[in-house]
């Protein structure tokens, strides 16, 4: 079964929960009945420094497990953005957390700049859920997985008692993305700081 694989890269720094986000995204793909492979960068850089989690989603088999030219990239720090943007597909989508990414690198990809961590902090009072906000934004902007799937996947993973918070975080990300999306559709790049 040959089919198109969608490659997503979630990048940032060690403590931002992006590996968990990658796992949730991959699990959402499974909820959608799709195949998926998730990988991540290990090593000294995983602690501090730039790190990344990558997810491939496909209705067919996934042989080569690495993401070569992602279609979607999330960057939650400047360092990660600079380090990993190079291999982003020309026609890809770059979603940056404007809380930390202030300089958008030169790229032909479509760029969405969203204040992800700020949203988490200011609207939810917990920077910790920035990764879930980001997931909302990524899925909202790309539809790599269905909305129901990502909701289910998030709820299945997060600690008991935090479901509501996380669901809210996800929705917020989704909303912001939709707005951004709409605004982009109007032909101008969104700088929602």
């Amino acid at each position: 079964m040959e089919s198109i694989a969608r490659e997503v890269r979630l990048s940032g720094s060690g403590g931002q929960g992006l590996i968990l986000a990658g796992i949730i995204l991959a699990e959402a793909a499974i909820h959608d009945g799709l195949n998926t492979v998730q990988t991540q960068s290990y090593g000294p850089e995983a602690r501090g420094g730039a790190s990344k989690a990558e997810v491939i989603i496909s209705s067919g088999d996934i042989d080569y497990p690495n993401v070569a030219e992602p279609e979607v990239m999330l960057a939650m720090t400047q360092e990660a953005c600079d380090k990993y943007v190079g291999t982003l597909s020309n026609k890809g989508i770059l979603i940056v957390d404007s809380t930390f990414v202030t300089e958008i690198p030169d790229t032909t990809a479509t760029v969405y700049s969203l204040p992800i961590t700020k949203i988490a902090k200011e609207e939810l009072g917990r920077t910790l859920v920035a990764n879930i906000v980001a997931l909302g934004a990524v899925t909202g902007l790309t539809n790599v997985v269905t909305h129901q799937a990502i909701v289910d996947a998030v709820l299945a993973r997060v600690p008991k008692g935090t479901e509501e918070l996380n669901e809210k975080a996800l929705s917020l990300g989704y909303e912001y993305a939709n707005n951004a999306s709409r605004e982009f559709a109007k032909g101008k790049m969104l700088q929602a700081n």
Partner: protein
Amino acid sequence: MFAQIEEYFRLEKMPHIWCPGCGHGIVLGAMARAIKQLGYDQDKTVVVSGIGCSARASGYLDFNTLHTTHGRALAFATGIKLADPELNIFVVMGDGDCTAIGGNHFIHAARRNIDLNAVVFNNNIYGMTGGQYSPTTPQNKRATTAPYRTIERNFDLAELAKSAGATFVGRGTAYHAKMLTDLIVNGAKNKGFSVVEAISQCPTSYGRRNKMGDPVDMIKWQKEQAVNIKAAGNMTQEQLGDKFLIGVLHQDEAPEYTETYQEIIDRAQGTVKK
């Protein structure tokens, strides 16, 4: 002033990659200040380390530095020291490095009383591999390999060193950084095997999992739990409770290995009669 010890650092390797609030940086600073006080020639000073977060220390210091295999730092250092007794040698080890895989080299270096200065960065955990319990993790703590809390008793590193033959044994903490510096200085001055156990904090792999708060909380815990051995004499067992002692815990006289080996050479060469 950092400027005073700046020369001992490989500045191009800084900032180091230890986590925010990791105690290892503080212990490393104490070591550098100690070497400053000792006035050792950089070229004649060697820092040997094993493998672990702590072991990265050697890479940041501008001496002759050797980053060995996990647990074997003292064995490498034994070769260096015996080969060239002129060199001043500091051996940086993590608690896992020193007392788990490296336990045997530790007791044997102590037994030989070879003039090495062991500085054990004890954060009670395997930091580098992400938080498995070590032989110094206290009982009833959480670690990735102890999801039901630890059941093994921890080593008393100082007791072990002493019973194996070390002639200088001190314990300090990252909080007691000044004392730690002095302990390293005194350990280095001891002609023989010296052990300085430096209680360090690992917020990432130990503190978080064991609800010890942030780095500040952890370093304050050190302040509160440590009792200077000089003060301990006036305290009841009850007052001591589960606190731990710091200071010079043991000091002793014994022939140093490389010096005694020189006597063998003299005898073998007929300088001295067999």
